[in-house]
């Protein structure tokens, strides 16, 4: 049984079922992470990733190898998540729980505990801000700015035009920036609005 990813792909393309299962074992945590970031909860992420691997298995003959298998899986996962979310009549906007946010903290021992705590807090805020975005904006910003997929691929997998993908990306970036890194003037404006509303009450 080959162990290298490229060899596993080649064997799976030749119809070796066990090789495909090894490919799943080697890549499913990555695909699950993307699915979780796109859907925002464990249950949906599990369904999406199951569907994604089924699609990958059926479409393996179409894998040309001009991108890595992981990138190909990201595209399939993004497409499966898009289909899954579109089928749902109501999107869930649940806050991610503590367990999920702490699991992405950088816990390497060589990192200073204080720095580690700061980095973990920043990632928690970033993940919360991502989850607070509407799903269509979240998908584009995650695929472009986290996974580095080209605009063309994002548009193709989400079933939208490249122009629409770019507009969503810029809106998403602006919302995230305003929430995570507000300028002093924006913070003052927000405080002022709060003051005004308190007076109004």
């Amino acid at each position, binding site marked *: 049984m080959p162990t290298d990813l490229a060899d596993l792909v080649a064997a799976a393309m030749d119809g070796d079922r066990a090789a495909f299962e090894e490919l799943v074992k080697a890549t499913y945590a*990555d695909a699950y992470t993307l699915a979780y970031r796109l859907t925002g909860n464990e249950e949906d992420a599990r369904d999406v*990733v199951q569907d994604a691997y089924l699609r990958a298995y059926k479409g393996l003959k179409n894998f040309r190898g001009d991108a890595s298998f992981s990138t190909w899986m990201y595209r399939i996962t993004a497409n499966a998540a898009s289909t899954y979310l579109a089928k749902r009549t109501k999107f869930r906007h649940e806050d991610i729980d503590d367990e999920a946010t702490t699991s992405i903290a950088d816990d390497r021992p060589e990192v200073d505990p204080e720095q580690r705590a700061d980095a973990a807090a920043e990632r928690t805020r970033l993940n919360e801000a991502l989850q607070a975005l509407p799903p269509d904006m979240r998908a584009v910003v995650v695929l472009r700015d986290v996974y580095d997929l080209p605009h063309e691929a994002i548009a193709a997998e989400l079933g939208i035009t490249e122009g629409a993908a770019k507009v969503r990306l810029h809106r998403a970036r602006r919302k995230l*920036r305003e929430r995570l*890194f507000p300028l002093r003037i924006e913070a003052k404006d927000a405080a002022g609005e709060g003051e005004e509303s308190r007076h109004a009450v």
Partner: protein
Amino acid sequence: MQCEQVHEALPEIVDGGQHADATIVDHVQGCLRCQAELVQYRKLLKALHSLRTEVLEPAPGTLTGILAHLEAAGERGAIRSLLHGRKAAYVGGIAVATAAAGAGAIVLLGRGKRRVKVA
């Protein structure tokens, strides 16, 4: 060039994907507010990019679920191809039977004509 115009353009040009207009560059160079905003966008992109290396611990049962799903789909495929094979066999059988019946009818018809001639 107003800060508001730069504010609109920054999310588009911050990653270098879109070429920044010279008037925007000039404005940002002389405007502390827009410089601050650009710095914040760069921090945001860096933070987002850092998520790429983070892999979540999949929910328990995820791997088993994927493999079971593949297995079930494989079985469904096998059943479908089996049924497809049977269907082909039925159609083939019917075709052979029809052809045999046709040939029999032609032979009988031929014999009938010969008897009429003899008579």
